[in-house]
């Protein structure tokens, strides 16, 4: 690695580590927003395996997020009076999501494109409706009221619900979650990058490119597709667990179709298949709505003296325009897979020669 690159990495690392302390000065809400953004990066990276690498259009991805969240909620709350440790619940949430992924994958193996999208969409809704209705005859999920007073994270003596002071710096609860999420995110990025450049990752891409040729080239497409669903889902499970711990409350409302579409939009906008593009897409679509929330109202008040357009409405409008423009001008996403980039570099080299 060049010294320049190392210096760059160190700078980014310092910036990421200092971020919650800076954001706390602006307002703790912004640290929470950053945490949610990291969760969405997480989810997008999981969905990227299924959609970006293996090319399986999954519109029900939020179901796995829900499985992870409810696993944490049920095993660490007064609802069943269970208070298991973080070390048990998070892996369990990932495992259950993984199984849910395989269960969804199995009947859809023969489906492609639109048909697969519709079945996965249905699966996402089924999971949400289950959560909504599993309150009778046995109250498992507490129905639409959701589960409240979920335990936060507790690592040894470190309680994530209170503020600690270290070296004269105050670390609030959300700030502490931020560091855990950042650490998990690093792991997920490494897993993603390594899978991409492996025998399995190549098999996924091969299936995306031409399933028949992949079969003839000796790939067990059934198992490799199931693996993509299961791997992608397990990321969703981890993100769900962290979501439940951070929010302290889960209800079926958090896992609607809209969320699946948002995550898919992040993957598509950023650049399907490219880890860094997906991260950029997720961060962009997480922060822009929040920025709107804080700027649109004052701006309109200042300009017109009253609210003309609600931030929520404006958000969908901007997303819609952004996606249309992306499809028109950068169909491979803002930051497409390196293969495409390599191609462009080659073209430039040839032009220079």
């Amino acid at each position, binding site marked *: 690695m060049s010294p320049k690159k190392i210096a760059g990495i160190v700078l980014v690392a310092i910036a990421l580590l200092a971020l919650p302390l800076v954001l706390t000065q602006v307002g703790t809400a912004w640290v929470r927003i950053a945490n949610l953004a990291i969760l969405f990066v997480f989810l997008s990276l999981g969905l990227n395996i299924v959609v970006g690498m293996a090319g399986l259009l999954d519109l029900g991805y939020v179901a796995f997020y829900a499985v992870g969240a409810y696993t944490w909620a049920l095993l660490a709350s007064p609802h069943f009076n269970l208070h298991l440790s973080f070390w048990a619940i998070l892996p369990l949430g990932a495992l259950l999501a993984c199984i849910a992924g395989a269960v969804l994958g199995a009947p859809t193996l023969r489906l492609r494109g639109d048909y697969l999208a519709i079945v996965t969409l249905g699966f996402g809704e089924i999971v949400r409706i289950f959560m909504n209705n599993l309150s009778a005859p046995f109250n498992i999920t507490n129905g639409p009221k959701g589960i409240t007073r979920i335990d936060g994270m507790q690592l040894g003596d470190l309680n994530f619900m209170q503020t600690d002071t270290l070296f004269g710096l105050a670390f609030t609860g959300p700030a502490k979650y931020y560091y855990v999420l950042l650490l998990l995110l690093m792991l997920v990025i490494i897993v993603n990058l390594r899978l991409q450049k492996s025998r399995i990752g190549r098999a996924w891409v*091969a299936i995306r490119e031409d399933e028949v*040729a992949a079969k003839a*080239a000796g790939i067990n497409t059934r198992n490799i597709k199931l693996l993509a669903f299961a791997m992608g889902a397990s990321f969703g499970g981890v993100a769900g667990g962290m979501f439940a711990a951070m929010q302290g409350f889960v209800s079926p409302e958090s896992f609607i179709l809209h969320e699946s579409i948002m995550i898919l939009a992040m993957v598509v906008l950023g650049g399907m298949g490219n880890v860094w593009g997906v991260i950029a897409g997720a961060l962009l679509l997480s922060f822009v709505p929040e920025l709107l929330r804080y700027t649109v109202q004052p701006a309109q008040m200042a300009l017109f003296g009253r609210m003309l357009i609600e931030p929520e409405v404006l958000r969908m409008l901007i997303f819609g325009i952004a996606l249309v423009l992306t499809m028109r001008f950068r169909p491979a996403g803002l930051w497409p897979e390196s293969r495409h980039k390599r191609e462009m570099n080659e073209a430039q080299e040839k032009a220079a020669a």
Partner: protein
Amino acid sequence: MSATATVLLEARGVGKRFGGVQALKDVSLTIRRQEIYGLIGPNGAGKTTFFNVLTGLYQRDGGDVLFDDQALDLETPYRVAAAGIARTFQNIRLFGNMTALENVMVGRHVRTKAGVFGAILRTPSQRAEEAAIKRRAEELLRYVGIAHRANDLARHLSYGDQRRLEIARALATEPKLLALDEPAAGMNATETAGLRQLIEGLRADGLTVLLIEHDVKLVMGLCDRVAVLDYGEKIAEDVPDVVQKDPKVIEAYLGGGVGE
């Protein structure tokens, strides 16, 4: 030599029907080791259907195939590949957005075993395997003569190079039988000559080749034995000189009014 030692593949009574069309009717043929075996016939005779049945892409209605003294599992394509049959496609099917090198690396899938955990943890065995996959893929690209295009996307390769790349990917699965579906289709004379050299080289290296081809000159010059299909039925199987003079074969080609 005993019969089993010389015979690599024996198809017995293979049949395939699409609705009312009998695409393959009771096709039996025998391919010997290290031979270049041609499969010819007029358009729609069932040649490609036979390939698809043989490689597990279509489910057969009857018959079975003995390969390398073992019954071949024709239901699952990847098991066919694992048993040692690799193929190319009439209308080239590459992984367009992967590089030439990656395309060949995919072919190594069936002979390697690193899984998810190996990849995530980058275990020494996984890294060694990955390096070996890459090395072998590079060798194969050199072998088919397109090493200089290793890092180009498959879809940017010229038509002839794509054909070669498809062969390299098939070779990466370490086949005993290489099935080529019209490899010379759309090639010019120079490219065809190069292809012919490549196929002869493959046989010299111990491979058996099954060839579907329309270029009669190529088939007659290259193949040791030829089978002719017509309306899904095998009407002849012999050395090229004999097949060429077979009245049934002449009838099949000329009787249809195609005029080859």
